[in-house]
């Protein structure tokens, strides 16, 4: 199974909009792909990560709490990618997650709006 998520420099999961790297993890082989987080260069941060995960062919997206806003949810749902939510700061080698809920999408959308407003 190929998981897509975002991490900071010490490979702990971090929110899509703040992480420095985007990684693909094969659960049986470990990390198989690392690249700079495309969201850092983009205006639409969370959807950019979602789109890139789809492009890279992920089966599952591990979204740190506060990462999946409604547009990114739509992108992942359209491409039939399963979404799980985890706590930011967890080590990449063993991830505990829960399925995505409506509240998580709502919460992430609010956070995304607030982040945009604070950037202006």
């Amino acid at each position: 199974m190929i998981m897509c998520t975002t991490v900071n420099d010490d490979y702990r999961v971090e929110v899509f909009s703040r992480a420095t790297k985007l990684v693909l993890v094969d659960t049986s082989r470990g990390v198989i792909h690392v690249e700079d987080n495309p969201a850092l260069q983009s205006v639409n941060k969370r959807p950019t990560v979602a789109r890139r995960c789809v492009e890279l062919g992920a089966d599952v997206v591990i979204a740190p709490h506060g990462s999946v806003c409604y547009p990114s949810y739509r992108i992942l749902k359209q491409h039939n990618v399963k979404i799980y939510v985890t706590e930011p700061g967890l080590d990449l080698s063993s991830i505990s997650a829960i399925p995505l809920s409506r509240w998580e999408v709502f919460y992430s959308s609010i956070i995304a709006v607030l982040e945009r407003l604070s950037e202006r």
Partner: protein
Amino acid sequence: MPTALMIIPPIVDEGLLKIIVNHAERNLAKAGFNNVVFCGPLRGIYGFGSAALTVYIDQWYSSSRGILTRCGETYLTPPIMLIRGTQPYLSPGTYVKLLWALRSFNRPIVVPARGGKGLSTPILMANAKLFRRLIKLNRRFKLASAMVRFLIENRRDVLMVEVNDECLGVRVTPSACLGVIK
């Protein structure tokens, strides 16, 4: 990459529930299950996260009929091992033996046996198609009954593997196999 799905029964004692989740998660990860899914009334009790990906689906249910439909929505990569959480105390060696049997012999369903008698949990299935058949049965019958019926319906495909696990078939009771775990 094998997946394990454990259906947790309603357990009132939170301490016991935590022990069961931690024990099962550690043993399944040790046995080589990279993807472990716990589904049932977990009430926010999560384990150590020993497997590469552990998913906790907090799902309340009053009857186990149809529970697989709700729990099976998660991403499960075959082979899939379905474990009833009412008998959760198996050792990593037992899980390893079942996986070995599935890979070594040409049978798509593997169950443990004791004294020549097969047990209905855990069931290891080689592909998702078999798991979907089981989900279908669970829509009509309670989980334990659906698992037994599934094995009867597919008896030609079932391989029984003799295992020497003292906690095989032991139900969730504080006295039973808890001593072994502690």
